[in-house]
């Protein structure tokens, strides 16, 4: 048999029907739902008099609009509350495998909640009305974001109409330096291939450095695949994947577990499988990264400088850089380590898992945030992460250093709740998008790893975490 890529294996095992032009109906195993992109889909379904195809595929949670403090007061913003209550009502009417509503012990960011409950399993197709669904690819899934019309389509038919993507292999070989994390790998890749570099491709992340990452780290890298333009990114199954899944609430048990593991072991690209494109990066050459602009590709190492648009030859790119520097309030050629910050955000579906919090806490332990840092926010990805962290005493380390320890949710990643930047404020953020206004109108976002965010909070400016370790 011809050598197949992981993508081809996952794709062909989900084809329900294929037209002669390659348009295919793809079966969906897991449908994750949150409050922002689903109300119009449920409404459309109802208006058309249709029933959901398989409610057992649905795992839902409220995360984008939920506050991260004063939970006893409920959701005070009436528009946010209406959206969350609409999800409550829709799930009540329709049903689900699991629903983690606001204040539930297991509530959290949908991309944290799915994997930690074993609701994301290797070999699945996983969709959600959210672009960071690529996160779940860490488990060798075909996982990608969809729009609201497609949410309705999956509800009604359990399928999506799709065309096969091209394949790209990104190999990261070698050993990551001390203090260099999965987030730095993701940002370095985007810095190299650009925010449109992966457009039209399904990216497989491989190489010894990728295999050396924990599941949390792999999720961070796959999460950012969308920022490289790819709808999905994934990693092959290995022992790390299987060990992570053992004993999770929705993981198979008994004979089913053995059967599943035997199948999952086949979920890797075969020796000699060919990709449409291959990109290679040396792990030991990756430095801790800091973005300086308003797109994740506008990134450099912490020892670098803000670039000078005068040296950019392409006119459209030059104007883009100038606009970004103006928005960010930065002068060309400024050393990154001289850029002072106002706020720190540790959280989001990119970096709010237990390992992320441990990495940040390791830097913070025994230190204090700088006085010029007005707010250093730690928002665990889920209730389970929060309790795990508290059992390890991480919350105490953060609060003793002047950080705020909050309830789980998306929070200042997109500032749909009360957590946000004021105009002109500069933030070291572990989230995934530094777009204009993303963390609040006029706010200035620099994307970094949890360890780098922690180091910035302590120094009051960007600092090389390797010097702090």
């Amino acid at each position, binding site marked *: 048999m011809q050598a197949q890529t992981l993508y081809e294996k996952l794709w062909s095992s989900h084809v329900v029907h294929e037209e002669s032009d390659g348009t295919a109906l793809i079966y969906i195993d897991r449908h994750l739902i949150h409050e*922002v992109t689903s109300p119009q889909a449920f409404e459309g379904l109802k208006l058309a008099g249709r029933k959901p195809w398989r409610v057992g595929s649905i795992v839902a949670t409220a995360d984008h609009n939920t506050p991260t403090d004063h939970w006893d007061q409920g959701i005070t913003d009436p528009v946010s509350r209406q959206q969350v209550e609409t999800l409550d009502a829709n799930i009540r009417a329709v049903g689900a495998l699991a629903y983690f509503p606001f204040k539930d012990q297991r509530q959290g960011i949908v991309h944290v909640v799915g994997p930690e409950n074993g609701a994301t399993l290797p070999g699945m197709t996983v969709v959600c009305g*959210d672009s960071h669904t690529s996160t779940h690819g860490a488990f060798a899934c075909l996982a990608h974001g969809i729009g*609201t*019309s497609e949410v*309705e389509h999956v509800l009604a038919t359990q399928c999506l109409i799709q065309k096969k993507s091209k394949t790209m292999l990104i190999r990261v070989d070698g050993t990551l330096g001390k203090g260099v994390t999965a987030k730095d790998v993701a940002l370095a890749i985007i810095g190299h291939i650009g925010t*449109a570099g992966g457009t039209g491709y399904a990216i497989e992340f491989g190489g010894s450095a990728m295999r050396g990452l924990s599941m949390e780290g792999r999720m961070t890298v796959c999460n950012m695949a969308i920022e490289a333009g790819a709808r999905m990114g994934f990693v092959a199954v290995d022992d790390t994947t299987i060990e992570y899944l053992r004993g999770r609430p929705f993981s198979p048990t008994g004979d089913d577990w053995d059967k599943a593991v035997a199948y999952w072991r086949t979920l890797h690209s075969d020796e000699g499988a060919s990709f449409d494109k291959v990109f290679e990066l040396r792990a030991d050459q990756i430095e801790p990264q800091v973005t300086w602009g308003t797109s994740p590709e506008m990134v450099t190492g912490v020892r670098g400088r803000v670039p000078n648009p005068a040296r950019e030859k392409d006119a459209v790119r030059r104007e883009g850089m100038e606009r970004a520097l103006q928005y960010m309030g930065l002068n060309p050629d400024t050393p990154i380590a001289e850029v002072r910050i106002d706020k720190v955000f540790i959280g989001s579906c990119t970096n709010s898992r237990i390992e992320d919090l441990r990495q940040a806490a390791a830097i913070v332990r025994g230190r204090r945030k700088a006085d010029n840092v007005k707010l250093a926010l730690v928002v665990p990805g889920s209730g389970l992460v929060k309790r795990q962290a508290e059992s390890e005493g991480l919350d105490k380390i953060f609060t003793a250093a002047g950080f705020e320890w909050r309830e789980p949710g998306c929070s200042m990643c997109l500032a749909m709740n009360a957590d946000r930047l004021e105009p002109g404020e500069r933030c070291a953020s572990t989230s995934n998008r530094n*777009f204009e*206004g*993303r963390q609040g109108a006029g706010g200035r976002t620099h994307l970094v790893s949890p360890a780098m965010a922690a180091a910035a909070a302590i120094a009051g400016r960007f600092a090389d975490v390797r010097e702090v370790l």
Partner: protein
Amino acid sequence: MDAFTILDGLVAPLDRNNVDTDAIIPKQFLKSIKRSGFGPNAFDEWRYMDVGEPGMDNSKRPLNPKFVLNQDRYQGASVLLTRANFGCGSSREHAPWALLDYGFRVIVAESFADIFFNNCYKNGILPIVLPKAEVDALFGLVEHTPGFRLKVDLPAQLVTRPDGHGMPFDVDPFRKECLINGWDDIGLTLRHADKIREYESRRRAEHPYYYS
């Protein structure tokens, strides 16, 4: 969904790469549970001088005179001309809803982000990719020609400038047929309901652990 065949429309230019869906419709407007009414908040942060919140009377808000779409000459435009990687970022379908509600039926760009591209078709917007050289030329023409229009012929897959210069474009045959007929994807898919059931029972037997 409204069918799309031929459109002759005024062109508005947005000369930027990487216009993201946060810029097209900022998150505070995503709290709506409706599909319509997003047009007045399309490009909200660039378009108005103040910070927009849901429930404001947008007709009373101060417009940013520097934002290109606020210029008189582009009012009523139905074709948006832009650069590379348009629609990147969040998967929010509120972005095409906002553009459609604003009045755009066609977006011409050097390239699009995948999810946004897909979302356009689901809402009767035609996203057209043209080579960079053609896009460059169009930006020049729009700037120097008041009232510059383009004719977009989906059945013929051709964009035509007023000077007669024709630019063919690619479109997936399936998507083209859906758009021309205004078909609802769900109805089309449900014609295969038996096949979906068949697949499902096979999968359940082979991989029971995905069904617990």
